[in-house]
């Protein structure tokens, strides 16, 4: 290929990428623009910039935060996500180590059942899980952490087991001979080796739990609202929808995710790839 046709094909590729980027970014940008317009102007002319007449300043944000109790929703989302992810990473890695190191019929069966749970869609257990959890008084922000541990166990145990199978026994045995009990061995020797998988598991579960709507809605939604519940409540709870407040809440839901993404991008992308290969 000569250099001018190479330059041409490069230009074409950049053009494709530029158009694709515009398509990917435009929806978010349009929502941001509309969040600064008066609520009555949004549905009528969603693609125009705010002008002197339609500009509403931060009014949508203040009314939206008030109507949805956004601050408390943000707090509950953060609380549930952080503690559920911690519980999943710690407890399932321990379980996976036990399954891989203690080989008997019971651990094999357990492993199989955990994997099986991964393909069961949520709707299958939606109703019965909600009833069971309510029966055991687990319909609280603390109780939901236990539920997330149970639901997240399948994928997490699977991923930890996959990694642990390639970890040599010698290091652990050395620790045991040095007088460590299994708990000390696990947390001082094994868990540090598991770090890359732990990060992958943490990221995949954080993305799921932070954005999850139906499970927290059914379990604790009437008393405690997470961010997705608050957004849906704004839409469903009022006779006529306050488009301004909705736009502002969409922006406020996206901003923390984008900040998190830009800071942890390296780990997120790595986690996705590692998770996919294991799956």
């Amino acid at each position, binding site marked *: 290929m000569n250099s001018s046709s190479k330059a041409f094909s490069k230009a074409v*590729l*950049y053009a494709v*990428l530029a158009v*694709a980027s515009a*398509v*990917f970014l435009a*929806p*978010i940008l*349009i*929502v941001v623009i509309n969040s600064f317009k008066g609520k009555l102007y949004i*549905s009528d002319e*969603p693609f125009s910039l705010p002008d002197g007449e339609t500009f509403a300043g931060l009014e949508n944000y203040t009314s939206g935060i008030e109507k949805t109790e956004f601050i408390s929703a943000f707090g509950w989302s953060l609380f549930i996500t952080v503690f559920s992810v911690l519980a999943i990473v710690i*407890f399932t890695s*321990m*379980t996976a*180590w*036990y399954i891989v*190191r*203690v080989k008997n019929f019971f651990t094999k069966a*357990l492993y199989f059942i*955990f994997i099986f749970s991964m*393909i*069961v*869609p*949520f*709707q*299958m*257990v939606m*109703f*019965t899980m909600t*009833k*069971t959890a309510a029966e055991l008084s687990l319909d609280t922000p603390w109780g939901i952490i*236990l*539920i*997330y541990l*149970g639901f997240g*166990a*399948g994928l997490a*145990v699977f991923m930890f087991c996959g990694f642990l199978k390639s970890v040599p026994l010698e290091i652990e045995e050395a620790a045991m001979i040095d007088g460590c*009990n299994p708990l000390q061995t696990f947390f001082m020797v094994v868990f540090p080796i598991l770090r890359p998988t732990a990060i992958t598991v943490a990221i995949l579960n954080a*993305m799921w739990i932070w*954005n*999850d*709507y*139906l499970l927290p809605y059914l379990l604790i939604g009437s008393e405690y609202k997470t961010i*997705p519940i608050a957004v*849906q409540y704004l*839409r469903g709870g009022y006779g006529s929808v306050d488009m301004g407040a*909705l736009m502002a809440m*969409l922006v406020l*839901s*996206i901003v923390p*995710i984008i900040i998190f*993404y830009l800071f942890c*991008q390296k780990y*997120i*992308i790595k986690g*996705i790839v590692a998770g*996919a290969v294991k*799956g």
Partner: protein
Amino acid sequence: MALKKYFPVFVLPTLVAFIIAFAVPFVLGIYLSFTEFITVADAQWVGIENYIKAFSNDDFINALWFTVRFTVVSVITVNLIAFILASILTKGLKGTNIFRTVFFMPNLIGGIVLGYIWQLIINGVLQTMGVTITYDPKYGFWGLVILMNWQLIGYMMVIYIAGIQNIPSDLIDASKVDGANRWQTLRNVTVPLIMPSITICLFLTLTNSFKLFDQNLALTAGAPSKQTAMLALDIYNTFYSRIGWEGVGQAKAVIFFVIVAVISFVQLALTRKREVEQ
């Protein structure tokens, strides 16, 4: 080994959570699909009556076809576009990382929020024709397809990029030396070697599309008159907005589970066969 005695510490917490959140509800769910109930405690055995009702329920059949059509279209478009973007971003162009960042971003946004973002935009476009997204089911259908593409392309692209980067470059060079054109290289070298990525991407898009709920609820909520309700939403509606139909809802959920399980196994078995050893 001493570890065995530590069962209560290492396994019990996960196991108890798993039994409460999954195992008991799963078994109970299968049992309840053969009963008529409102509060679980009042369940009356009715045999396969719920399954007959489910299959003769127009909403359910409509949701099933809508979901199948949606899944087929989404799986094809998402994977095709993701693969094209991945092959462009593995050519060593400057700025690759920025583009990757942009394309991946929508994936992190939750389904409810995604639904309302696209509702605004699609309604804005349709407004020029004087209608809204709930005017005709075909708008809802294509709206969901666009939304799904926007959300999943970046994710699949990242997996394809990793797959393409793992191909040893001497294999590509060798095929060029042998006189293969670009299309032949793609078909006979690249695609067979990234088959593991294709397997996992097809699996993820297939199951994600089939199980879609949040996006469906936020974008159209099934309107007009339940015609754009997918399976998950139809099951939800049967449970929570139709008193006395809880058993039918549970039967629909069991059918849903069986379909998802069958699709997963068949798809994994089919594409695993095509994978080659590197």
